[in-house]
């Protein structure tokens, strides 16, 4: 089974040189730590920053410079700042090459639910609905099952949707799945996870190809 860093590390392999990337909160944020040597990416933060740098050194925090998670960050040489309308404009116009975000549920047709649980305090969708509706390339990072052991890869999402027909790839603690033709296609499994376990824990339609790689 992959831990959070394992999931992030695997997703980092999907990041190509020269990509503009938007990282959601949680596991997606960790992806930045695993981008391979020689691969340059520029991070977009939807509150209006292109070229997001690392957290500031202690004592150098700037209240005016935060990311979409409201964390203090830094700029890098070549960064640019813009307003929220332009920020979501560039997202809608698909100038951002890759979006990585977490989810509560993903369905076999690429729907995603990640913002609202009925009966619980709803905090809001933030920029997630804009991102999933617009991005051309979206990878979901999440645990395969919820805390009760229920599959989060479903025939249909049961929670209120964030977006429809938009997710191309899911990386979980159990493996890597492409979503196409109305099914989850197993691409790689975690080294210590059997195909049977994945089958048992995937409620949505699952396609197992002849050759399944091992997540490295």
């Amino acid at each position: 089974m992959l831990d959070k860093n394992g999931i992030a590390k695997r997703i980092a392999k999907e990041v190509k040189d020269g990509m503009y990337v938007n990282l959601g909160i949680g596991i997606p944020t960790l992806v930045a730590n695993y981008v391979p040597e020689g691969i340059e990416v520029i991070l977009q933060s939807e509150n209006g920053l292109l070229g997001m740098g690392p957290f500031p050194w202690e004592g150098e925090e700037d209240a005016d410079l935060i990311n979409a998670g409201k964390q203090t960050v830094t700029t890098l040489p070549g960064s640019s700042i813009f307003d929220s309308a332009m920020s979501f404009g560039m997202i809608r116009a698909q100038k951002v090459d890759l979006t990585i975000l977490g989810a509560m549920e993903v369905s076999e047709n690429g729907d995603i639910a990640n913002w609202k649980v009925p009966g619980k305090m709803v905090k809001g969708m933030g920029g997630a609905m804009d991102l999933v509706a617009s991005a051309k390339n979206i990878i979901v990072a999440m645990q395969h099952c919820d805390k009760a052991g229920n599959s989060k890869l479903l025939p249909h999402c049961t929670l209120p949707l964030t977006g429809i027909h938009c997710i191309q790839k899911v990386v979980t603690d159990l493996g890597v799945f492409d979503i196409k033709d109305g099914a989850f296609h197993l691409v790689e499994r975690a080294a210590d996870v059997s195909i049977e376990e994945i089958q048992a824990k995937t409620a949505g339609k699952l396609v197992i190809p002849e050759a399944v790689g091992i997540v490295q």
Partner: protein
Amino acid sequence: MGFNKVVKNANEACQGIEDGMTLMVGGFGLCGIPENCIAELVNKKVKELTCISNNAGVDDFGLGLLLQGKQVKKMISSYVGENAEFERQMLSGELEVELIPQGTLATRCMAAGYGMPAIYTPAGVGTEVAEGKETRVFNGKTYLMEYAFDADFAIVKAWKGDTLGNLIFRSTARNFNPMMAMAGKITIAEVEELVPAGSLDPDQIHTPGIYVHRIFQGAKFEKRIEQRTTRKRDGSC
């Protein structure tokens, strides 16, 4: 005479804001919020406000202060976490909350400022956000039609401003402020530094003064940090 936009302080700037009005309030989280005007609205005890703002502050700062005073009837936001009083009022039904996608919020402000009555966005298609909204397909993709906002006042915070109302924002404190500045029937700008007209490079002005009706230098800016994240000097994260 002439372009008399400079007001003394937040009190003078907020003249005319009345119970039941719709206000746009700039900022993202606690970053780039008009602290001085928010404090004045608390003093003013103006009530039944509809606030269009990306977030709702925290319990003891930002728009959270208006919530404490039960001055807000309705929030239109994209994300409202980090606020216990907000949660209480929302769950009890005292506070109406309309959650909309962040890009939709930004673009509905821009639409108002650009005189566009409505815009199309794919955000929210197929979700509960789309309920009751008109959809339309362009080039095979479905979009929602979303209307421009209509706000009595827009209250924004800039870094520098001049006496003609020209504004420059600093870093990501820009966020929603420029679009809201364009969108208010009356726009109030509080700035960290008010300078004479002619002090700012015309090429570098983010918000032309034509959009700004009242401007003042804020008495004090706390600029609270919501999530202080740092790297330690030893190199670890």
